[in-house]
């Protein structure tokens, strides 16, 4: 893959990160006049459920392979 293609792929990967930073920053600025209860009403978002499930599944597979390898 060429350098430009890699840079483009990296930029596409980072859309959710940059989007969170920019929209969150603008939201914090817009809400600065609100009361503390209003500003703090909504908490931060979790890591994507699909990613968490994928990591848990890989961990289960890894632990299962380790048990099989130990002959248990």
């Amino acid at each position: 893959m060429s350098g430009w293609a890699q840079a483009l792929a990296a930029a596409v990967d980072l859309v959710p990160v940059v989007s969170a930073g920019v929209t969150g920053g603008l939201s914090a600025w817009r809400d600065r006049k609100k009361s503390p209860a209003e500003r703090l009403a909504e908490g931060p978002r979790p890591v994507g459920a699909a990613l968490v499930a994928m990591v848990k599944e890989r961990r289960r597979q890894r632990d299962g392979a380790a048990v099989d390898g130990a002959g248990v």
Partner: protein
Amino acid sequence: MSPAKAPLGGAMGAFALIGILVSWATCSSGCGATALDRSTTAATVAKVAIDATAGGIEVVCSEASLNEAPERLTACERAIDSHEAMRAAWAVWAAALVVAHSEEDEGAIAIALALAAPVFGLYESIADMLRSLGVDVPALPWAEAGEPS
């Protein structure tokens, strides 16, 4: 740069951008206010940083990334657990800040300010994990905002 390194290199820039956003937002709306006001501003900005670390974890621990570097799995598990703990700690901090604003009691304010520390500590643990994977995550520029003046 290998395909696996490309997203990490890009993530460095994204985290630097977030660091700038965090310091800008904190100083524009919190400088010169009381310790409780600064801590409240820090909590709103921390929410942005926590959202961004979720995005960073999703980039660094994506399926494609783990296919190329399976040894990252343990670090990714820890980052996800720490992120969930950080969200819980943020919720407690935010609730204490709301109470401190309404009660205006010195004890409640002291508790609310102290509850910032666990959130900062968990952020740093996730930042250390991402740094170990080659992502340059900035230190919190607003950590001192939770301390009483």
